[in-house]
């Protein structure tokens, strides 16, 4: 099967999950928000968010088991990994969402905030990769 078709199917499964989250619970499937619910030990959302995140790990395991493909982390130094993690955590908290909450769920309900956020983090990612790969 062509890579693009596989990507489209994978994306559709993500969309199915996001739709079910809305249908079942009325919740946005925003991963940065779910992570925050778990780590700050939110009394009302800890177990539900924790179960969702555990499910993500489980789903990844299943796919790796079936396909036999397991991505290996890219070569990078510890400083870059920590800096990237800090920026992703700080940025998604400050900007109220990430690729899933803004990019999938927000755009799908035509939220202007999410469309703007998605354009900005895409552009910022593109500039960063340009800088890292072609200027350094």
């Amino acid at each position, binding site marked *: 099967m062509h890579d693009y078709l596989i990507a489209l199917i994978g994306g559709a499964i993500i969309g199915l999950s996001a739709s079910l989250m809305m249908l079942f619970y009325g919740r946005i499937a925003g991963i940065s928000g779910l992570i925050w619910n778990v780590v700050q030990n939110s009394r009302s959302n800890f177990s539900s968010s924790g179960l969702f995140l555990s499910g993500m790990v489980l789903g990844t395991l299943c796919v790796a088991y079936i396909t036999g493909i397991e991505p290996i982390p890219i070569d990078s130094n510890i400083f870059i990994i920590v800096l990237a993690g800090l920026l992703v955590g700080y940025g*998604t908290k400050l900007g109220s969402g990430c690729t899933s909450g803004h990019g999938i769920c927000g755009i799908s309900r035509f939220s202007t905030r999410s469309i703007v956020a998605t354009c900005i983090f895409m552009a910022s990612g593109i500039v960063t990769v340009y800088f890292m790969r072609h200027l350094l």
Partner: protein
Amino acid sequence: MTKNMTNKSYGLRPLFCYLICGVLFGAGLSISGMTDQNKVLDFLDLFGQWDPTLMFVMGGGVGITIIGYRFILKRPMPLWGNRFMLPISTVIDKNLVLGSILFGIGWGLYGYCPGPAIASLAHLHWETFLFAGAMVLGMFLRSKQEG
């Protein structure tokens, strides 16, 4: 996401379905290649060897969710809850812009956004745990500022 609307009278089914939704989400991320950092960075490398594959992930995800939301949000309420909890803010403020810029930089540096980072914990590489730890720390740093 302030209140948990999972009604206890539904038993364990709502909780179990959170797990199922997560499994679908993680499987979708892995199948589509979002957990492959090289693929993500190749997608962001618009001015190099651009790999458009992740456009299709976005397309599939948004396509299905638009259709799904269109029907679901016509309902008076979710299946296991009292109301749809949708963000109400419509203001494009400094926080949204600055936060998204910083997030994009982190994404471009290492090729992980929050979803794929969590999903990839499955493979038990120390780098992923280090990234996830730093990500959580970053969230707490921002939260401390908010007071």
